[in-house]
């Protein structure tokens, strides 16, 4: 099975102290460390587990700037077979629809049985996967937390639904799935792994390589524009439970049950 995984870079929340910029319309980006969007690693791991079982290839594609070839490279260190970078000045400032348009152009020029995305970008809106599926006229499932390949060009997939329940679906291939983070435990990529793929060239395709109409992408075509960023005002503080241990436990149980936490 040939699988495409869409991945990208985000400011790493574990390694940064995120602060707003002075204008209040973005975060302070000096001193930031970027990493592959964590949920995308789960999508790559899911793809690798499928190909390890039944064969095929995993391609990782990223839409970004010229320096973003480290994203497909890192996922290749994880075990992906191919990496592609879609980069063009005119892609800058694209909204979700713009990104989906770029990805669609790449998918149309190749053949993939299955397309995976992370459940969402850590700074994103979880919209590209669905839009890409619509543009390709492929079936789409979100929040997928299990994948099983069944014969006859179908997948059996599990989805997480409210309250921790799970539903099972069959979905026709080719399709687009957004992968929930609990689906697996992504393998570790150490420095040695990265070093070993450091010299592998990552092909970069621009708008003309993709045959893209530049009017459909970039800041000018964006229909969603971010206008503000703010830190929500602090709510009420923590509540300290007092009393003897069994009493505290009783109070805690009540609170959790009251908030619907014990079904």
């Amino acid at each position, binding site marked *: 099975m040939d699988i495409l995984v869409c991945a990208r870079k985000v400011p790493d929340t574990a*390694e940064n102290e995120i602060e707003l910029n002075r204008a209040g319309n973005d975060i302070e980006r000096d001193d930031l460390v970027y990493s592959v969007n964590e949920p995308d690693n789960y999508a790559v791991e899911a793809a690798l587990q499928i190909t390890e079982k039944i064969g095929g290839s995993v391609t990782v594609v990223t839409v970004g700037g010229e320096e973003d070839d480290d994203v497909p490279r890192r996922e290749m260190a994880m*075990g992906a077979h191919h990496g592609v970078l879609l980069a063009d000045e005119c892609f800058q400032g694209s909204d979700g629809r713009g990104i989906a348009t770029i990805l669609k152009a790449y998918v149309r020029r190749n053949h993939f049985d299955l397309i995976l995305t992370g459940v969402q970008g850590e700074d994103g809106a979880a919209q590209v996967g669905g839009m890409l599926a619509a543009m390709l006229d492929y079936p789409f499932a979100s929040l997928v937390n299990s994948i099983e390949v069944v014969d006859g060009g179908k997948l059996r997939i599990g989805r997480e639904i409210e309250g921790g329940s799970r539903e099972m679906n069959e979905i026709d291939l080719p399709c687009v799935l957004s992968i929930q983070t609990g689906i697996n435990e992504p393998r570790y990529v*150490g*420095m*040695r792994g990265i070093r070993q793929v450091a010299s592998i060239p990552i092909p970069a395709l621009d708008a003309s390589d993709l045959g893209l109409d530049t009017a459909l992408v970039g800041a000018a075509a964006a229909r969603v524009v971010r206008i503000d960023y703010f830190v929500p005002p602090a709510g009420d503080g923590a509540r300290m439970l007092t009393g003897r241990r069994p009493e505290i436990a009783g109070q805690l149980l009540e609170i959790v049950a009251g908030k619907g936490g014990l079904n």
Partner: protein
Amino acid sequence: MQYPSPAAATYWLIQGRTLFATLYILGTLCFCWIVAKRLQPLLRAQRDPRFDRPLERLRNVLQYWLLQWRHPRYPLAGTLHLLIFAGFLILAVRAFAMLILGVSATFVPPGGPAYDILRAYAATAVFAAVTVAALRRLIAKPARYQAPAPLGKGRSADAIFLLGLIAILMLADGVIESSLAAAQNRSLPLVSLAWLLRQAFASRPPSALHNLYLGGYLLHALTFFFLLCYRPFGIQFHVETSLFSIYFAKLDRELLKPVRWGIPAENLDRVKSFGVKTFEDFTWKHMLDFYSCADCGRCSDQCPANAVGRALSPRFLTTKARDYSFRHYPVVGSAGNGTPLVGNLYSEGEIWSCTTCGACERECPLLVEYIDKIVDLRRGLVDDGRVPQALQKPLKALEVRGNPYGKLERKRADWANGDVSVLAGGGTHADTLYFVDSITSYDDRIQAIGRATASILSEAGVHFGILGAAERDSGHDVRRFGEETLFFALRDNNTQAIRSTGVRRIVTSDPHAYNALKHDYSEVPPVEHMSQVIAREVRTGRIRFEPLANRSAIYTYHDPCYLGRHNRIFDDPRYVLDSIPGLKRVEMSRCRDRSFCCGGGGLALFHEVKEDERMGVRRVRMAAEAGANVMVTACPFCMVNMEDAIKVAGMEGKMAVIDLMELAAQQMVRQAVSPALERGVN
């Protein structure tokens, strides 16, 4: 009757000489075949240069093999083993002489009256010792011989069978000796085994005595060769292999095994696979360790991971590998293919449960190595991307930010409130570098240890500075968790930063950083732990302490693994404590090189292992049992683990923990009080 010759006697129509010659040849051939098969995996193993420094190795043989140095650490089992071992050495001459008697009618055994008395008592002592040892296994059943089901099977049956065979050997020898003495009407050493048997045989006619003599001889020869060929099948193999295991034992225990022997670090990127993934990835010496393990259980008895119910028990790490080797390299049939060890033989939890505290290695009478094997197995897991999720984030942060918390580099010196000069890039020079390391730089609680250290150094008049933003994590535990490549990056970064400052020495308050700088780094100035610095300054009189205000406090010192066991710094911290007037100190039963790990440092703080109880909780209880209400430690990680443990154990108010730096800074007589640093302490 002189020594009647079994060689000249007839056994069921066969001449003794023919019978015994056949037995000897068959037995020897069989033994050689089995040993050749046992050597087969060693020839396929990784290289391991152990042929250097013969004098040091012979010294180890003398101390640990001949003198059985570590055995008395377990008094009863140790004494029994010493008796059996000494008996074996004494009886070796006799045993070979007896064998020759079977094929030569004219041979006269060497020795004399003195040797005859010595060997009579040696055989008696061995017989008594194996009897007590077997009864101990059967009746007393010490806990360390038990085998919890998921880890492996117990070997008490093997052990008792072996003890039984030894007892038969001693009895046979006694029968030979006593029947001969009775026939010759000769007396035997009083109350020896042979003497007792002679009393029983006293009234037998000469023909019966002759038969007893020949029967005893046959039994002795058969048991001897059966034992010889049976030994390479289990724990009893150590009789042959221990000498080699100890001769080839690791000499520099403080150095971690490189990824591959003989491959320089710069070529490591070209190595296809890191660490131990299949059995053949072990070195030949590590395989020899598997053969040599006598399953005495001392390692697991001391292992803190085993004590708190983690998946790890070092004894089974070894015995499972030995079983694997016997299965895959059978005595009859061809060798099997290498299967991945972790996932089959070992569980991932088992491999990640070790804190590398070193208690097992410190205890093993046969000097079996564990830490290198654990680290090698982890290197294999890291290479395959099989790293617990909880460790992936801190590892990534170490790679990107140089600390496991993902905090900004420029905030690394914030703990000092600007009171300590930053050497790297700051243009300031100093003689001494205080290497702070990540936890003391960033952890809110532990920063106090940094400030205490700085105030002690200032008070002692040391001209010192820190690296500040240029410092990276020492990488000590990164390396011990198997991430060698990341460790190299951290080490190279620090080495360059340290060298660029031109300092002549390094001090640190963190035993993990101390161990890394001292043993894992090679091109940095000499390093000292602060407990050594303080002890020296107390001796010179530059540091003096005020009497302790709280006279009801009873202190106990907890030896951090990487200060004590791994670097043998036991006395300096105790000397510092005892220099504080009015300080009452008690020792825990597990102290010095038997100290009990707090739960592990570095990445271990990020990794929750499945366990019944925290190691720290165990340790805090041990302190309470010793009668202490204040624990003093000298390691930031111990501090974190102990403070948590006190809360978990519900012992707040009954037990407190303080770092040696904090206590010293608090009690120090101050000549010129520096207000800035004064503010900083606490």
